[in-house]
């Protein structure tokens, strides 16, 4: 089974040379730590930076330089700053190659819910609705089940949607899953996790074809 860093590490393998990548808050943010350093990648943060670098050294924080998670960051050589309209122009115009974000629920048709639990919790959608409606390549990073042990990979989302039929891949603590027109297709098992455990933790239709390899990190 993977921890949050393990999920991020596995997702990092999906990041290819020449990709512009938008990382959501939470596990996705950790992905940056695991990207191979022999490839060229630039991170976009929707509040207005391309070429985002690591956190600043202590004492070098700049209140005018944060990421979408409101964390202090740095800018790498070749970075640029821009306004929110331009930023979402990049996103809407499909110039960003890969979006990685968290979710509360994903449905077998690729629907995603991650912004609201009616009557209980409202974080707001932030940029997520724009990202999922626009990006062609959307990977969800999340735990396979919620705190109550219920599956987060559903036949149909029960929470208000963030986007419809948009998720392409899901990486959880248990598995790597591709969203296909037929349903969730199991691609890889997390180290030490059996196919049966994944089946048990998945409410939506799970497609298992042939031997399912254990993931290599």
């Amino acid at each position: 089974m993977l921890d949050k860093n393990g999920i991020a590490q596995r997702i990092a393998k999906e990041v290819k040379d020449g990709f512009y990548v938008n990382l959501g808050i939470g596990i996705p943010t950790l992905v940056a730590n695991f990207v191979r350093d022999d490839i060229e990648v630039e991170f976009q943060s929707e509040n207005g930076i391309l070429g985002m670098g690591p956190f600043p050294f202590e004492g070098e924080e700049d209140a005018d330089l944060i990421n979408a998670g409101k964390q202090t960051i740095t800018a790498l050589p070749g970075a640029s700053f821009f306004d929110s309209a331009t930023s979402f122009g990049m996103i809407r115009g499909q110039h960003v190659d890969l979006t990685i974000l968290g979710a509360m629920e994903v449905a077998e048709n690729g629907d995603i819910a991650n912004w609201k639990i009616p009557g209980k919790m409202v974080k707001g959608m932030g940029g997520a609705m724009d990202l999922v409606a626009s990006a062609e390549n959307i990977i969800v990073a999340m735990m396979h089940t919620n705190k109550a042990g219920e599956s987060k990979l559903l036949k149909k989302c029960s929470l208000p949607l963030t986007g419809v039929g948009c998720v392409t891949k899901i990486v959880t603590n248990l598995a790597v899953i591709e969203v296909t027109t037929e349903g969730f297709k199991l691609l890889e098992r997390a180290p030490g996790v059996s196919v049966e455990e994944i089946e048990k933790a998945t409410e939506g239709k799970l497609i298992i074809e042939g031997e399912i390899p254990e993931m290599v990190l």
Partner: protein
Amino acid sequence: MIKKTVNNVQEALKGVQNGMTFMLGGFGLCGIPENAITELVQKNIKDITCISNNAGVDDFGLGLLLQKKQIKKMISSYVGENAEFERQMLSGELEVELTPQGTLAAKCQAAQQGFPAIYTPAGYGTEVAMGKETREFDGKMYVLEEAFKADFAFVKAWKGDEAGNLIFKGTARNFNPCMCGAAKVTVVEVEELVPAGELDPNQIHIPGIFVQRIFQGKDYEKRIEQRTVRPKS
């Protein structure tokens, strides 16, 4: 050169009234118009509709107006970690129109540039699109979103000149440029106000034509919400 300078925040906010709609720049606490917010608290302007990506934190930024119940309605994309915002929203004290962040920016820019409405894919198939016109272009579905209408836009820039030309810094730029000229009156506070001619005309982010009033801001706190650092190697 058409001068836009006013002497202070009081002069800059002349004409603000209860019940008005305001746009406020900033993302989280980054690039917010601190002086204008303080003055709105001071003047105790009530029943405000705020178009702003966030609502500050409990004790800073728009949170100050929320605390004093001056805000009737928020149009925002993210509530985030503001507990008072979430509480007022869930209890129904505060009207909230949650809007996708890109749509929020586009509706500001549409108002600035005279587009009556825009089509965006964001929110299609979600409750955000409920009651709105949707339409297919090239096999993809879009939602029609109308340009915002606002009375005042409160903007924070880094540098500005007497003609109202603006330069922003880092990610404190965010929504600020999109809101300039998107309301009937655009009020800008800057960290450094310079004479016309000092800024390179090639480097101006927002030309003065989009600005009605500009003033030298003061006492910026520029609070950091999530101070994250790494150790010096």
